[in-house]
């Protein structure tokens, strides 16, 4: 559980987080499903599909899809700690590829917020097939949160 500087009563419900996730067209296109969302963490599942392969010889899912899964999981974790009416945007992220994803298997993406402030959520996570102790990728990211729909760049850089 992340250290909180915002009282819980202001936070959006976890159902609202799931509902916002449901509006993301690209996650629908990938059939990414929420396994669970808690305050400050989320677990998503990406089904294997031939359409998202990056290495057609080995049938390995493209790294970019792992990035999408983890950005989405991190986004859900960050959203679960923000008040209703706030939106979030990824400021930066890093993915370390630890091993190729197993061909034909689902990939799970777990992310947790380990520190958040009024405007920032620091998130880390893992992508894995069956076994979280044998991860496909390690993920770290920082998300911005603010009231309304302004996103980084719109107000920072004009």
């Amino acid at each position, binding site marked *: 559980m992340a250290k909180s500087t915002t009282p819980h009563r202001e936070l959006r419900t976890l159902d609202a987080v799931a509902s916002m996730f449901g*509006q*993301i067209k*690209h996650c629908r296109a990938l059939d990414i499903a929420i396994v669970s969302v808690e305050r400050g963490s989320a677990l998503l599942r990406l089904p294997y599909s031939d359409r998202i392969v990056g290495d057609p010889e080995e049938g390995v899912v493209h790294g*970019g899809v792992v990035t999408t899964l983890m950005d989405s999981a991190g986004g859900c974790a960050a959203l679960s700690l923000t008040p209703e009416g706030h939106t979030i*945007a990824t400021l930066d*992220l890093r993915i370390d590829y630890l091993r190729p994803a197993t061909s034909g298997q689902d990939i799970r993406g777990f992310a947790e917020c380990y520190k958040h402030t009024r405007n920032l959520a620091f998130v880390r996570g893992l992508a894995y097939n069956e076994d979280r102790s044998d991860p496909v990728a390690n993920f770290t990211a920082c998300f911005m949160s603010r009231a309304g729909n302004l*996103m980084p760049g*719109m107000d920072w850089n004009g």
Partner: protein
Amino acid sequence: MALFERFLALKAQGQYREINRLIPYTQFVNIDLFDLPPNLTTVLRQTESNTGNPTIPAVHGGVVGALLEHTAIMKVLIEGEYTRFPKIVNLSVEYLRPCLATEDTFARGALFKQGRSVSNVRIEAWQSDEARPVAAAHAHFLVG
């Protein structure tokens, strides 16, 4: 023919767009080559199903990351000289401006350092104005 041999044959013939198409995921999100070497540039075509934030609407940050990663891979494959496929080690992405889901997105990489065992690639992505990038990244590849 094994994939690496097919790749080498296409490269020898200058069939760079065919190299890009060897990868199924490029068709799922609509990434093509926009410009060929020496100005190798990719384009992520405006595609409704790539949308993340529906309000702006913006391209999903993961797809922007995928475009940057794929551009780095194409740069290393097409401009590097290797005896096997380079393996990506890691990728760091910085999101600079909203990437509008209503526009095409372009990306170009530079081989920042080519070592004997590791290559470092820097990549930038932009939409209407190349001087105003929407995202930047660096990636490491094992090439030895």
